[in-house]
């Protein structure tokens, strides 16, 4: 197979170049080393339109050096020297770039930024580059690479592209890649003039959820040919049913993920407020500290962004926890038995924390990077893909909940915490070191808030105000679930998330939120102590 690929290597590539830019296909393009050099030089032009043509010419040149040039260009690493206009690939170094000539592929040593001029790409060019690279990777030995190359070609195929795919299809051994190519070819067949081909393609694609299939079928439905119209109508109906189903699944997933964010934000509060009874207005700021910790950790280990998040979790727990303990020792300790006063003091603390962060880190948002393993999505089918960051956050949320639940319900710390919160004096008379328990518990709740901050840094902005965005929702979740009940917080958060997401499509984001609030207000009339009320005889 490999030999075949090598033999045919250039033909499909330039064809693809043609198919991408049909306008240029009129003349037979030059081929070979000279053509490559010419094309490379043409890249230096000012206008994007002309550069597009240069790229097409480059691809058509069928030179072996094309692929690295395209890749460099895509990654904004292709330059030319200001002095002698040599096109080079630059690798960023400490102070400037180490550059390599494109034509002779020889290193030209280092150059400073001011000596180089970048060969700019825009959106449209990037698209072309990517397709070009994809075509070049169709012969890659790794099936995953080929698969993604094929996937790149959706919507970008011309007749020539079909030819390449058809040729490649015969030699392709990987079943997944074959399937994908098959789908692409069928989609192409849908626009065929031959009604049998069309009908066959419709039948073959009637299960495909790819949007392009739908768009094409949509057109075919209005066809004058009764049979085609009926067949595509049926296929479309089936597809639409499927899509509707997956849309629901997707919404549910969105709901779960919003819910998990709510739960994460609220769960620390479920401890400090729910169990200890401190109306902790600084909770949001503790979340914020966790997020900033993530930022700092990333600054400290820029080489290991993937790892940084894992390091940030314990770090954020410690930082927020320590701040929490400090707050408890300095302020809250004096306020037990005066729950409303805690609101006042923690409100003050939240202002102070915000301003502190603003002073240290500036009022601007900080950029927290998303590690590779958390970006992208898990594609279940073309209609349903679940984003990794959300998936991880849902899992993370459940994990945090489980750990916390065990700590509170099963450990002696948990028992002491509950005892102290219910009757401080008596707990002390039972030999429980109430002040230590308080500090630890508050630290625990705060630490969990910090962990939530790590998660939130992955989906929203990290700035001095971020805490305020979550404090209201957090209280809402804890109260809705039932104060003092961890399950309540979990179920409450998830149900609010899901309710919100199911309402959003027909009510819009704003109205959905209002409706959820109204719902909570009415719900509390029915159950004045939340979803899972704390039961028991009241005196």
């Amino acid at each position: 197979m490999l030999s075949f690929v090598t033999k045919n290597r250039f033909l499909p590539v330039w064809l693809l170049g043609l198919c991408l830019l049909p306008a240029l296909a009129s003349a037979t393009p030059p081929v070979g080393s000279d053509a490559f050099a010419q094309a490379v030089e043409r890249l230096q032009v000012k206008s994007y339109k002309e550069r597009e043509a240069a790229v097409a010419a480059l691809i058509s040149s069928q030179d072996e050096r094309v692929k690295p040039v395209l890749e460099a260009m895509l990654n904004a690493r292709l330059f030319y020297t200001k002095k002698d206009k040599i096109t080079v690939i630059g690798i960023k170094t400490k102070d400037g770039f180490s550059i390599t000539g494109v034509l002779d592929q020889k290193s030209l040593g280092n150059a400073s930024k001011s000596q180089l001029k970048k060969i700019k790409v825009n959106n449209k060019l990037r698209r072309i580059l990517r397709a070009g690279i994809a075509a070049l990777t169709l012969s890659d030995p790794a099936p995953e690479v080929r698969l993604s190359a094929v996937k790149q070609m959706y919507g970008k195929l011309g007749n020539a592209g079909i030819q390449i795919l058809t040729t490649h299809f015969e030699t392709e051994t990987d079943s997944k890649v074959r399937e994908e190519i098959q789908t692409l070819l069928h989609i192409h067949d849908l626009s065929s003039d031959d009604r049998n081909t069309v009908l066959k393609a419709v039948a073959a694609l009637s299960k495909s959820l790819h949007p392009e299939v739908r768009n094409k079928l949509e057109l075919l439905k209005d066809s004058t040919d009764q049979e085609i119209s009926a067949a595509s109508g049926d296929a479309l109906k089936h597809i639409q049913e499927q899509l509707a189903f997956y849309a629901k699944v997707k919404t549910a997933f969105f709901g779960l993920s919003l819910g998990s964010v709510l739960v994460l934000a609220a769960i620390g509060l479920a401890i400090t407020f729910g169990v200890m009874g401190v109306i902790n207005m600084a909770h949001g700021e503790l979340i914020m500290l966790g997020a900033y910790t993530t930022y700092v950790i990333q600054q400290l280990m820029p080489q290991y962004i993937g790892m940084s998040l894992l390091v940030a979790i314990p770090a954020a727990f410690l930082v927020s926890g320590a701040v929490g303990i400090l707050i408890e020792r300095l302020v809250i300790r004096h306020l037990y038995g005066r729950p409303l006063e805690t609101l006042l003091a923690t409100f003050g603390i939240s202002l102070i924390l915000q301003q502190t962060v603003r002073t240290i880190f500036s009022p601007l948002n900080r950029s927290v990077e998303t590690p590779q393993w958390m970006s992208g999505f898990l594609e279940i089918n073309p209609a349903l893909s679940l984003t990794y960051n959300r998936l991880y956050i849902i899992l993370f949320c459940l994990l945090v909940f489980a750990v916390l639940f065990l700590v509170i319900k099963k450990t002696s710390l948990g028992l002491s915490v509950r005892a102290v919160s219910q009757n401080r004096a008596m707990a002390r008379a039972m030999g429980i070191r109430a002040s230590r328990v308080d500090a630890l518990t508050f630290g625990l709740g705060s630490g969990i808030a910090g962990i939530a901050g790590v998660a939130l840094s992955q989906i929203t902005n990290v700035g001095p105000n971020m805490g305020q965005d979550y404090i209201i929702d957090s209280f809402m979740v804890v109260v809705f679930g039932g104060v003092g009940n961890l399950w309540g917080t979990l179920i409450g958060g998830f149900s609010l998330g899901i309710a919100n997401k199911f309402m959003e499509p027909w009510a819009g984001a704003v109205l959905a939120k209002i409706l959820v609030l109204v719902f909570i207000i009415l719900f509390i009339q029915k159950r004045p102590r939340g979803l899972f009320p704390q039961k028991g005889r009241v005196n």
Partner: protein
Amino acid sequence: MFYMLKGDRGGQALLLLLSIAVVLVPVLNLVVPEGHALHVSTFTVTLLGKYLAFALLAVAVDLVWGYMGILSLGHGAFFALGGYAMGMYLMLQIGDRGVYGNPDLPDFMVFLNWQEVPWFWQGFDNFWFAMIMVALVPGLLAFVFGALAFRSRVTGVYLSIMTQALTYALMLAFFRNEMGFGGNNGLTDFKDILGFSLQSDSTRVALFIASAAALALGYLACRAIVVSRLGKVVVAIRDTEDRVRFIGYRVDHIKLAIFTFSAVLAGIAGALYVPQVGIINPGEFSPLRSIELVVWVAIGGRATLYGAVLGAFIVNYSKTYLTGAAPEVWLFALGALFVLVTLYLPNGLAGLSKKKEAAA
């Protein structure tokens, strides 16, 4: 009539100060020439007027929180509704002086391509109707919300968070442009009230006097409640709600009455506030704003009405002063003030004077 001030040193002082201010401030502003050392600038008059409106709001909060024990995190909503009612009146007074020169429609409605004033704006061109609405709208909302919540015996933090949800929902709703209240920009660019230009010094002084009078009356009304037997029952409800039921009081009715009354006061405060600051926008509904109100009361001293007034003045004055004098660090100062008062003055600033009284 002043029996209710018996033993209320703070209240006596407050009313005395208010009467002095009502006489002195206009004289110092309108009669004493500018540049004279004793001249009180219109800026100061308006500022004081704003504080007075806030003080009335704080008194309203104190009544339900300090005395009845309902930590309302939604009083900002009642304040804002009163403010909007006033704002709607003022808006319709602009007439054709708006940017589009439309004699009937406020600018934002012209912009939204509305053909006529929506039904819920009808009548607001009439001052008295608007004034009734200032009391009625917040009162009605409080009544409906309270009737539901108190009957269902929603108490404690549950109630607090529900009031917060209420104001939050209203905030989101008023932010919506379709609501017909000007969206995020709210109502602004007012020209005159009852035919008097809002920009003239005498109108501003008049508004100041109106605010002072409203505060005095509001204070006396609250005081009358507090010293009556009803006031004692209200405090009992705060301490042991259940027990009050068993001696035959309808706790839900009492709570509802006080809550509604307090909401009306808040609405009036809002109506006084708007013409003096010149804008009302959904930001007033923001939950954090309502929390701030509670903080004023706590700083001043809960369950002493004059403490609430004191707190409103101190916190807002600090804010005015510090945002100008120490714009970079004022949040530290304010935050520290909150923390320190909580720690060292559990009864707020009013507690300080009480201690002194006791010591003397």
